[in-house]
Structures are given as structure tokens and as C-alpha cells.
């Protein structure tokens, strides 16, 4: 059960979050078909750090990018993404 430092809410239990996909798997709606399918269907899947998109679904509902280690599960960084918010 990770503790994820939500950029908006502070440290919260993983139960409140959902994993979406890795950053490299985001399909740009404007991309050509081949590029889009490459992004959708291939993963580096490293045995180390990767950048992942998670959502604080049962908290503030905002999206964020976690830099997380796939073996140690250490979360090295969390970055907010989404529309500009009022601080």
C-alpha cells in the first residue's frame, strides 16, 4: 500500500488512487495512425524507474505523473498535470 504524495492533497493512501498508463503510452489524438498504435501497443516496461500517470480518483480527482521504481516501489517524484489550478 503505497503512500502517494498528491501534489494537491499531500500524502495519501494508494487506495484513493488509480493507475492509468505510462507517460510514453499517451496517444496524441493528432498523431498519425502508426505512431498512435506504436504508443498504444508497446511499452519499455523497465525493471527500474518509469513515469506513470495516476489519478487521485477517490480524492481530488486530479491526474499526476509518478516517477516510480518497478522493483523497490520507491516513488521518486510526483508532478501535477492537468488544467492550471489556483494555488
Amino acid at each position, binding site marked *: 500500500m503505497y503512500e502517494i504524495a498528491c501534489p494537491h492533497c499531500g500524502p495519501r493512501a*494508494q487506495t484513493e488512487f488509480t493507475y492509468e498508463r505510462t507517460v510514453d503510452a499517451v496517444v496524441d489524438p493528432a498523431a498519425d495512425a502508426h505512431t498512435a498504435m506504436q504508443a498504444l501497443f508497446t511499452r*519499455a516496461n523497465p525493471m527500474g524507474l518509469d513515469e506513470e500517470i495516476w489519478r487521485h480518483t477517490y480524492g481530488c480527482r486530479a491526474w499526476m505523473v509518478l516517477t516510480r521504481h518497478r522493483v523497490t516501489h520507491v516513488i521518486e517524484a510526483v508532478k501535477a498535470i492537468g488544467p492550471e489550478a489556483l494555488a
Partner: protein
Amino acid sequence: MKTPYSAFSLLRGALNGQKHWQPAWRDPEPRSSYDVIIIGGGGHGLATAYYLAKVHGITNVAVLEKSWIGGGNTGRNTTLVRSNYRLPQLHNLFEFGLKLWHGMSDELNYNVMFSPRGAMFLGHNDGDMIKLAERGDAMRCDGIDAELLSPKQIAKLEPLLDLSRGARFPIDGALIQWRAGTARHDAVAWGYARAADALGVDIIQKCEVTGFVRDGNRITGVETTRGRILGGRTGICVAGHSGQVAGLAGLKLPIESQTLQALVTEGVKPMVQSVVMSQSLHCYISQSDKGGIVMGGDPDNWPSYARRGQPTVVEGAIAQAVSIMPALSRLRMLRTWSGVTDMSFDGAPIIGPTPIDGLYLNGGWCYGGFKATPASGWTYAHTLATGKAHELNAPFSLERFMTGATIDETAVGPMPNHR
């Protein structure tokens, strides 16, 4: 020549302190080259080696295992064996395997304790029952056994299920495959290893592949912690770590690794006869020969290579299990463990060539690889021996993701965490 296993020989051993048994497999030094190199000494890799030797007469084969054989997902699953899939590509492959399971102990002269005790999916409403009938009808039309059970029939087989109408997920019926069941997972690896070794296959443990030997777009061998080993054809067979090993060859796969947890309770006298699964819920329950209730649920649906799960995921699966079988409540969870699964992007395996010559892939088994062990080994051996797909693994190509010919049993699309 190894002493064949038999009751007689065991009795003989009773008099000599069982001193007449030889090691089940040799511990050879790797040779400099082989006709076929199989990376991964799990059940699938060992079965592949066995069928290469047995069916195709190719015995100059090395199985390279980074740790100890059968120590990955072969030794970490919940031992279910079944072929009750809806989609024909899947049920045809798994059914071919199920037939091999039925003769496996004799074939290998190693009792893998395959026990066809029946595997059922419970239905909890009319919608579930239609879906189960559809699956059963699809199987039956392709010659695979499947039978719908009424609640009364279920009660006879599994009296401890909550068959009351007031249950949160009342049980309206089930689809059972009687020829399905469970097996002793370790024995499958050991049995294939012993049989393959007897045919001349080198099983090399503590030999980790650290890179590939490459000649243009062709793989000609592997670098390992025990030196360079050349091979005519090289087959990756490391489900759970496919992404990592394929990555050594520069390949990116339609696979994400996830942790799948399982658990076993303390042993009790027989209380669950068959394998119980559910169409609406995500838990599965069976009882081992030692009496422990073996169960699991959904994977931890985010990427991980750690064999370390998240407790609330297991708690969720247990809640489902206790809700359908309340008598489980006072049993105690004895042990939990985790495996790393190759979650492919349509939920189906990948068996076939890669874009790199001489390099083949067998992976993407998601949480269902154990039951496929013989079918996977058979078809992969065919592919490694001939360079071509067997008709059963032809649909399971790596290209299918880019062409769109995906085999999506649960129909949730490319994101494994939605599966």
C-alpha cells in the same frame, strides 16, 4: 539410465532407505553452442525442451534458468487447469493442452497429480447465466466439455456455497468443465525437467542471460553469467519478465508486468471439491491435497516487477470468497505470495517469431499460463523446430496488435489495468 518411478520401486526403497534414486536431472556445465537455446527454466521452457526432444528429435537443447527451475510463475500460481474460454482461438489452444494434461503423469513418469475435479464458473443473475451458456455452447460446438449446473446440482457438489436467495450475489447456476481441475505445480516443472534431461537436454540453473549475440538482424546466441552460449534458434520463455529480456534485444512489447497475489489457508479436511470461480466476481477457490484452501483474485493492476503485493487487493478477493462461501470465515490465511505476470494488451499470450531473425517469443500469459504449460511447450517447440507457427499458435502472433487481430476474451481493450 534413471530408475523409473513406480510403487514397486518405492517399496524396494523402503528396504534400502531409498538409496537407489538418482538426481532427477543433471547439473551440466553449459556447452559453447546448442541447436536451440531456451531462456527460462519454468514449466513452459522445460516443456518446450521436452517436446523439442521428444516430438522433433532435437536434443541439442539448453534451458537457461537464472535461478532454480520452476521458481517463477510455475511455482507461484494457483494450479488451475482448464480450457473453458469463450473465444475459439483460446479454447482450442487450452483444450489441446488439457488433453495433454490428462496423460501427463504417465508420459513423464512423474506424478504431476493432475486431478480433474471440475472447474465451475458461478452465475449470479440471468445475464451471467446467458453469458455462461454462450461460453459453454461455444465450447461444446468445438467439441469441448461444458455443462450448465442448476443451484441444486451445485449444492450437491459444493454444499458450503451460500445458495440462499438473500445472498449479495445469489447463485443462479454454474458452468462446469468436469475435465478441468488442478495439478501439483512444482511437479510439472520437475517432471518435464527429468524427462527432458533423460532425452539429453541440458538444464542449466543459475545461468542468467545478460545480453544477446547479434549478427545484423539475427540473434546467434546469448551472453550469460556463465559465459557466451551460441544457438541456432533462441526462444524467450520468461513470462513475467518478457519485457525485460526482450529489452536486451532492443524490443518493446505489448506487455506490462504486474504483480498477481495468491494465498493459501491452513489445512482443513475436505470442504471444497472442485474449482470455484465466478462470472461476476473475481475470486477463485480450490482446495489442495494438503487441505489448504488456495485462492486468488485480480492482479495488483499497476506495473511492478516486485514479488510483493498490496494487502488490500487480497483482502478484496477474500471478501468475495467469504461472501460466496461463508464457511471460509474462520479459516486462517497461512501464506501469501506473488508472481510477476506478463499482462499482454489483449489478455492473450504471444507465441511466435519476433521482428529479429532467430529470436522467438513465448510470453504474455497474463494470469493464466500454468494451465497452458503442455500446449505452450508443444506449439513453441513446433515453432522453434520448424521456424513456423503451429496452427494453434498462429493466431497468437506478436503482429496482431498492430494489425488489430487481437484476441480479447474479456473485451476491455488494450489497457491491462482495466482487465
